[in-house]
């Protein structure tokens, strides 16, 4: 007895992701954000290679106004600001995204486990978070700096030695690794709390019990059934953490973790630019513009993604 439920008409062959894409496409802000980000990426990672050396010091031509060869003018050492912003973008975008990814990964898993296990486990895990929250971050960084900076040097040597990579590039890479380490350690704490709260409510839902009844393993239930359902809010929160990471990177760089001068990053540019407020505002404004533009777009994209993934919202 084939059943045709006339009261509902079901859209043919649609799928979550298809819907999501469709809804995204309808969301003006999200699409706008997407485009800005695409542009940013292509600027920083492609266009950058074609513009002048960002570290070319020219002391006689410092604070030059924008001109044909220096679009954004030059900085305190007469280096091309535009080039520096683009190259800085490489670092900052990577830092922002990777650090976020790392902390999100840890945060979700940790928070999910804590929330799902509940009871004692939960209490212990959350108290651990409290503890980590209270650890003086700077101290951690100094220790890391002391221990990891030599390490990164060795690694660079090793890679260059064995794989014949470009020394410059490798150096930049290995320098940033301890940074991610530090940021990752820091970033996931608050997130895990949020995820935990989400999971707490999700795990009461019947489909979780159904999964138990079907004899699924705890891991499977956690990763296949619970976590996918908490992604939405998590996405939004994590977009909020990106700026924090990028700014931390700046502070860490000054402590010797992260980008090695003369190379730069948005955070560093902004931090340095802030000192020229009275005199050369553009040194703050221009990098600041790129920075916040990217984050805005990222944020709207995040929101869009959340709404797009939200099945309930999709219902009508």
């Amino acid at each position, binding site marked *: 007895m084939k059943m045709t439920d006339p009261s509902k008409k079901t859209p043919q062959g649609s799928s979550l992701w298809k819907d999501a894409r469709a809804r995204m496409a309808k969301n003006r802000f999200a699409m706008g954000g997407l485009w800005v980000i695409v542009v940013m990426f292509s600027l920083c990672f492609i266009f950058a290679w074609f513009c002048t050396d960002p570290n070319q010091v020219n002391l006689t031509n410092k604070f030059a106004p924008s001109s044909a060869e220096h679009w954004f003018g030059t900085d305190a050492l007469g280096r091309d600001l535009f080039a520096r912003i683009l190259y800085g973008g490489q670092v900052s975008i990577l830092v922002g995204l990777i650090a976020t990814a790392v902390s999100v990964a840890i945060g979700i898993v940790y928070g999910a486990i804590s929330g799902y296990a509940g009871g004692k486990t939960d209490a212990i895990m959350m108290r651990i978070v409290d503890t980590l929250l209270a650890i*003086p971050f700077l101290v951690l960084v100094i220790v890391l700096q*002391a221990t990891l900076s030599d390490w990164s040097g060795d690694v660079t040597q090793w890679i260059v030695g064995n794989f014949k990579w470009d020394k410059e590039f490798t150096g930049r890479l290995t320098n940033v690794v301890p940074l991610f380490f530090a940021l990752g350690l820091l970033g996931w704490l608050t997130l895990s709390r949020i995820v935990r709260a989400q999971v707490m409510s999700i795990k009461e839902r019947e489909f979780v019990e159904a999964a138990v009844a079907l004899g699924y393993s705890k891991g499977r239930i956690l990763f296949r059934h619970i976590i996918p359902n908490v992604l939405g809010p998590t996405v939004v929160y994590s977009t909020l953490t990106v700026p924090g990471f990028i700014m931390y990177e700046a502070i860490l760089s000054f402590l010797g973790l992260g980008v090695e001068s003369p190379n730069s990053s948005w955070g560093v540019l*902004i931090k340095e630019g802030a000192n020229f407020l009275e005199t050369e505002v553009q040194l703050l404004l221009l990098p600041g513009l790129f920075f916040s533009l990217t984050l805005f777009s990222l944020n709207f994209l995040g929101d869009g993604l959340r709404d797009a993934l939200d099945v309930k919202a999709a219902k009508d």
Partner: protein
Amino acid sequence: MLRFLTDRILQGALVLFALYTITFFLAKAMPGEPFTSEKNISAETKANIRKLYGLDKPIWEQYITYPKNIITKGSFGISTSKGRPVIDIISQSFPNSLILGLCALAFAIGIGVPIGVLSAVRKNSWIDWACMAVAMVGICIPSFTIGPLLQIYVAAHIPGLKVAGWGNLEDILLPSFTLGLVSAAYLARLTRGGILEVLSQDFVRTAHAKGVSPSKVIIKHTLRGGLLPAVAYLGPAFAALISGSFIVETIFQVPGMGQHFVNAATTRDEFLLLGLSLFFGFLIVVMNLLADLLTGLLDPRVRHTRKTD
């Protein structure tokens, strides 16, 4: 209640101890020592001064001594960089940070919550967009940029408003604003989310059916539930606020506690460091506890009891 409290207090104690242990060994792991200086200090002097601070003892002994002194003498040691008891430093700087933090919190709530509510009520309108954009700005602009901007473009032009300094009431204005901005932004977002969640629930429709005016629906029926996520966030956030911020304090010349975290670290002032992080840890534990209690007050439903049928 009692049982719950005792549990949490016990856990808190454990947290603090773990925190102490980690911080202690981290501090030891830092390169250099409290008396490292560019001045030319003789080995004798160093040896003597180490003895003075009990740093000549073997590590494990130091590890035991510190908490012992806290419990027995109530002493957190003497700061090697400031040459005065750690207790003094905290007790003299914390009140300032507390005031600053409270004002910052006031700003955060006063700005964040209304914005959040507004954009939730006007979801997907341009108002919503604008509010969230503002929030985003708050999150994007780091305090070491906001601070100077305020100094140059606000303080310098308004007579009676000092660029920096601490003492008169109006001096609190700028720093607390700077400090509160980020939290305000987060609050705005969280509130928005929370309110939207509640607005989608049936009892809101009931309220409308009763003929409750929209504004009243928000204030009386949705706000309470909508604030829950914000409250959860405020716990640790508040602890962070009142424990001071290095950047804000140095920019606005506030004699707060935040700068000591940094100075203690850079001068290898382990006693101050331990004292501070223990204190901060204590704050976090308490705040989380308060946040949980507050949640309980806001949400009368028992946290979760399995429905029998």
